[in-house]
């Protein structure tokens, strides 16, 4: 059993705080992704779990044991680094077996486990090559092999795919997911890429400025963002945010347009509240080219400023209530700038955030 628990974990470099007391509990065999923009403290948090950074305050527990003062080698974790960190002077076989050798395993055992790991990752033909003779994806795979060969309590991934090109990144993402399904070990994975977070995670931890903004399953975080930050960070393209004022059960937007408050949010708003109406591009679509055509909605004619065709869908830039918004058209229809289309806004899926705090009205 290797659950990982962080209790009020703080990291400071001198007077500068990087992580401000975060609480997080990661279940055994869970795949948790820490995601956030650069500088949000996600890598630092991972490195504190690994033991590569001192913990300024709070507790880190692995498998129930406080590990604050244990060196990395005593935490029984393995880590995949952003730049792979393969040992350049050793071939793939020795890279994979290094940890086992240090642990004093017998040569026969090392060979057996290295071969097992190599089979899982398709590295068998590469065992005698040096890292310099491998492609980016192969290096990445060796780094993963080095992580699994020791059979650790947890894997830590520090932006492992950010050095790969887009196509390879997609492949390796799938391989990491498959690997996790096969070896079923607790995983803490750091990335700034929300697509990786959405596709890989059992639970996503969205971080900002050394705080945790929201923890939840990918769908929770996507469907019920607790702040404008999460709303715009998760999901691509980001959610549109339109400032407005609550008037009874209507959101009055900047240009005077009234939008009904979604039923599920009515209990959370009060008259005169300054809010931001959040609506995803997927929920603003030309009539007949949207995701959902039922449920409460509003129809409005808008002029297309710019259209980016993506094949089976197009991203449309238009103006709503005096503000630029992005909308999405599903289907292989070519749209020209200047064209006026009737858009349907799926208002039941809209979000409301307190304009002052940026928090969802649901958490006020």
């Amino acid at each position: 059993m290797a659950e990982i628990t962080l209790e009020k974990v703080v990291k400071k470099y001198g007077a500068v705080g990087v992580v401000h007391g975060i609480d997080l509990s990661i279940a055994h065999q869970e795949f948790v992704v820490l995601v956030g923009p650069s500088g949000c403290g996600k890598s630092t948090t991972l490195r504190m779990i690994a033991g590569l950074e001192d913990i300024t305050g709070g507790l880190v527990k692995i498998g129930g044991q406080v590990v604050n003062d244990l060196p990395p080698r005593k935490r029984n974790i393995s880590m995949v680094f952003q730049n792979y960190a393969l040992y350049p002077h050793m071939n793939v076989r020795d890279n994979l077996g290094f940890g086992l050798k240090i642990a004093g395993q017998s040569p026969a055992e090392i060979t057996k486990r290295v071969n097992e790991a190599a089979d899982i990752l398709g590295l068998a033909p590469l065992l005698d090559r040096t890292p310099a003779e491998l492609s980016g994806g192969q290096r990445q795979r060796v780094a993963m092999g080095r992580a699994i060969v020791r059979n650790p309590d947890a894997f830590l991934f520090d932006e492992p795919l950010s050095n790969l090109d887009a196509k390879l990144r997609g492949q390796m993402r799938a391989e990491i997911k498959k690997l996790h399904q096969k070896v079923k070990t607790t995983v803490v994975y750091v990335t700034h890429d929300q697509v990786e977070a959405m596709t890989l995670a059992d639970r996503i931890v969205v971080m900002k400025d050394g705080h945790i903004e929201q923890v939840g399953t990918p769908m929770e975080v996507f469907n019920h963002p607790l702040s404008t930050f999460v709303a715009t960070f998760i999901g691509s393209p980001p959610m549109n945010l339109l400032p407005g004022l609550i008037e009874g059960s209507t959101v009055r937007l900047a240009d005077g347009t009234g939008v009904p408050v979604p039923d599920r949010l009515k209990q959370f708003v009060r008259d005169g509240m300054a809010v931001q109406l959040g609506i995803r591009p997927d929920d603003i679509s030309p009539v007949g080219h949207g995701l959902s055509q039922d449920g409460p909605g509003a129809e409005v004619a808008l002029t297309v400023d710019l259209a980016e065709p993506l094949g089976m869908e197009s991203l449309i830039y238009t103006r709503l209530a005096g503000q630029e918004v992005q909308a999405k058209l599903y289907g292989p229809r070519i749209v020209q700038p200047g064209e006026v289309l009737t858009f349907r806004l799926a208002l039941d899926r809209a979000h409301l955030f307190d304009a002052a705090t940026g928090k969802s009205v649901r958490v006020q």
Partner: protein
Amino acid sequence: MTVSVESRASKQAKKVALWLATFLLMLVMCVPGLWVVLSAFRPNREILAKPPVWVPEELSLVNFGKIFGFGAEQVGIPVGSYFTNSLIIALTSTVMALIIGVAGGYSFARYRFRFKGGIFLGLMLFRAVPGIALSLPVFMMWSRLGLVDTKLGLIIVYVSLNVPFTIWLIDGFFRQIPQALSEAAQVDGCTRWQAFWKIEFPLAKSGIAAAGVFAFLTSWNEFALASQLTRSTDSKTLPVGLLDFTAQFTIDWAGMCAMAVIIIIPALILTFIVQKHLIAGLTFGGVKG
């Protein structure tokens, strides 16, 4: 057609000119060395002949026999002692400069500490001071400490001459090695110390070897300070020993050249041995920056 022939001709001419320039440059650099080596195998009268004898008429090992005390003619110079002194002093000071250089270079590359920039600058400035400018103060200190005319005295001087350079060079090599490698090793089960010896040290080997060759050659060839600080066969090194061939009115060029060859040979051998370790590039490929 004619144009291409012409351009080919001009290309050819350029190539020839380039070769000629290279040849002349190499000639300037190599002839003195060649002359020393040739003179080591020629009798004094041929060396001193006027006009000079360009192509040697007789070559022999007599000069070497003389300085080592074989054969009819002998020169009373204890080349053997000088050689041993030189070897002990150069090797010991090199090893010490490397130990300090590795420790210092690693610290500068990996750790943050107070006055780091200032200390590094200080080391570099120390390097800029000509050694001979220090000879008088060093001589005065060494004479009080009883270190004049001892191997230890010279070793200390050479270590302090070489350390700034070895630190600077080795620091650069450790800097090239990504810190993630040592971290990966620690996660893999190494202590900090093991991670250093098993991962970082092997990767910096070429830099350490280069620093070693440099330090050895500096100590091996150094003349100015050694001539001040040594007196007898207890501590005199080969370059200082060369002076023994000068008498009040004569200079034994043949013997001097033979001894110069003896000085050159170990340096050449060492450089050849270490050369293959000097090939950098080992650190590339393991990580992607």
